């Protein structure tokens, strides 16, 4: 049932002598036919997770753990092999379509090239397929010869979707696909994505900081804080009965719940708090929280990283 399994992923950056633990032991799996949401504040490490899966991390990085896809550990694969997987099996939509689309190439070309490159399609074939993809995402295919700057934000996002889905990958990683869009455009894009993903029996890892987006789209939700996952649960459960104090705080901070902010500030990933990383901001925080780093506790189909639940079920 798991398409992709992340085991103990560690991503450490070395910045001027300080080690930044952007991902600190992440265990997560993406199942077949599911939309998995990855939620967290900006800078918590969720985009890094997406890039780690795709092998798009920059040079001065240390990566540990395993990412298992189709029996292979992606982190061990050669660059050649990774290139075959990127786009074709696992595709990624980067944040910010305005900067992710090459300004000097036409939109059509940026879609068509994946067909020529991965499938060896001819120019005409690729063009035809690109044209179809554009129509599929709701962009007039006559605009194939136009350049990205000629499109509005919503349209560019659709182009990104077209590129992502062009080769029919098994998994699509979408990094903040609705940033910068107004709410009606947001919903249109989300609905489009949902429809396309479901109709192709694909899975999606939806990375976002926006809980409303997650609520609308996701089957399961994983909550990330300071480079660690603190809660993973089916969407309805997590939204109606959030277990981890951070998740509760996130929900409380939504406009419709009262806009109550979580006190304190996000921790530095270079020197995170000892023990539970959330404990300085947690209203249930106890001495034990500051000493011992909590493990993930499994409660049926949910997982929580908090000692509040240590007596309820056996560990994951």
């Amino acid at each position, binding site marked *: 049932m798991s398409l992709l399994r992340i085991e103990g992923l560690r991503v450490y950056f070395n910045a001027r002598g300080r080690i930044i633990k952007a991902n600190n032991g992440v265990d997560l799996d993406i199942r077949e036919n599911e939309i998995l949401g990855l939620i967290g504040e900006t800078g918590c490490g969720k985009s890094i997770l997406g890039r780690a899966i795709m092998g798009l991390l920059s040079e001065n990085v240390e990566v540990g753990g395993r990412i298992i896809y189709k029996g292979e550990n992606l982190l061990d694969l050669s660059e050649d092999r990774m290139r075959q997987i990127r786009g074709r099996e696992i*595709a990624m939509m980067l944040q910010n379509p305005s900067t992710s689309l*090459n300004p000097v190439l036409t939109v059509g070309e940026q879609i068509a090239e994946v067909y020529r490159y991965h499938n060896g399609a001819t120019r005409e074939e690729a063009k035809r397929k690109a044209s179809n993809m554009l129509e599929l995402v709701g962009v007039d295919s006559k605009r194939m010869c136009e350049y990205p700057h000629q499109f509005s934000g919503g349209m560019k996002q659709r182009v990104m979707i077209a590129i992502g889905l062009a080769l029919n990958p098994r998994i699509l990683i979408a990094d903040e696909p609705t940033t910068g869009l107004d709410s009606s455009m947001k919903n249109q894009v989300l609905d489009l994505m949902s429809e396309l993903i479901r109709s192709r029996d694909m899975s999606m890892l939806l990375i976002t900081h926006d809980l409303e987006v997650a609520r609308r789209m996701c089957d399961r939700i994983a909550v990330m804080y300071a480079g660690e996952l603190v809660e993973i649960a089916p969407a309805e459960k997590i939204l109606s009965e959030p277990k981890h104090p951070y998740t509760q705080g996130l929900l409380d901070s939504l406009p419709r719940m009262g806009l109550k902010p979580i006190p304190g500030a996000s921790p530095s990933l270079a020197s995170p708090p000892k023990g539970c990383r959330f404990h300085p901001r947690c209203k249930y925080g106890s001495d034990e929280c500051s000493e011992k780093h909590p493990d993930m506790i499994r409660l049926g189909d949910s997982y929580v990283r908090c000692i509040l639940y240590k007596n309820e079920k056996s560990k994951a």
Partner: protein
Amino acid sequence: MLKYVLKRLLLVFVVVLGVTVVTFSAMHFAPGDPAEMIAVARYGEDLTQGEIEWVRATEGLDAPVYIQYLRWLEHVLHLDLGKSQITHEDVLEEILTRFPATLVLAISSLILSLLIALPTGIISAIRKNTIVDNACMTGALLGVSMPNFWLGLLLIWLFSLSLGLLPSFGYGGIKHLILPTITLGTSMAAITTRLTRSSMLDVLNQDYIVMAKAKGLDARTILLKHALKNAMLPVITFVGLQLGFLLGGAVIVETIFAWPGIGKLLVDSIYARDFALVQGCVLFIAVIFALSNLAVDIIYAYLDPRIRYEKK
């Protein structure tokens, strides 16, 4: 796009006009009596006041400055740049005779510099912070800091005087072109290399390059298709700016190698205080410079889709 071109042409016109005003004023506010200087140049030191006055009258130097300017301007609009006040040769003709030599030098230097700079800059960017990169960048820095007139002299000393391989001055065949080209071309190459590298680095850091990688494209495709075109845009602009450097450098190089181009003409005419010739050269250089910059701008506008196609 057309609007853009027209607007720029107008700008060129205004600017060149301004340039002529500035040079004209500079000359007439320069120390010394122009009439006297011309008379001396023509007839030697032993002059009577009458001869000086005669020169003043015949050259129209007795009229107020702005009248002189307007007269000159009128002539220019009829493509008459006047006659050299010393040799009586037609200024425009002099300039046009010399121009091809400068053009040859400029083009060959430009080609040499691009041949060196582009590959070096790109490779340095790709192999950032490796030995190759550091070596190239240090070399480029040395090239930028080395005065090209000194380089020219060193080259003459080495290849001409010591090894006797190449002629040290004059205008003739390829052999005469080599040293001047190397002198001018390598200094320009140094600057262009640094710029190419930084432009390439900027591009390689962009999101769309990561995106191209995310699509599974290989390094070669990413470099040649996605990165290069973007990186070349600022380089093209810069090459345009460097045309000025070329023209300026040509002045020095032509003087060292006695290359009969406009640069040398300009320097010689300044020495000789031949105002008409100076004014003519200055105008000509300004126009050429402005037009070539305009050409570069147009090429850039054509190549950058963000300018060529307006947003819908």
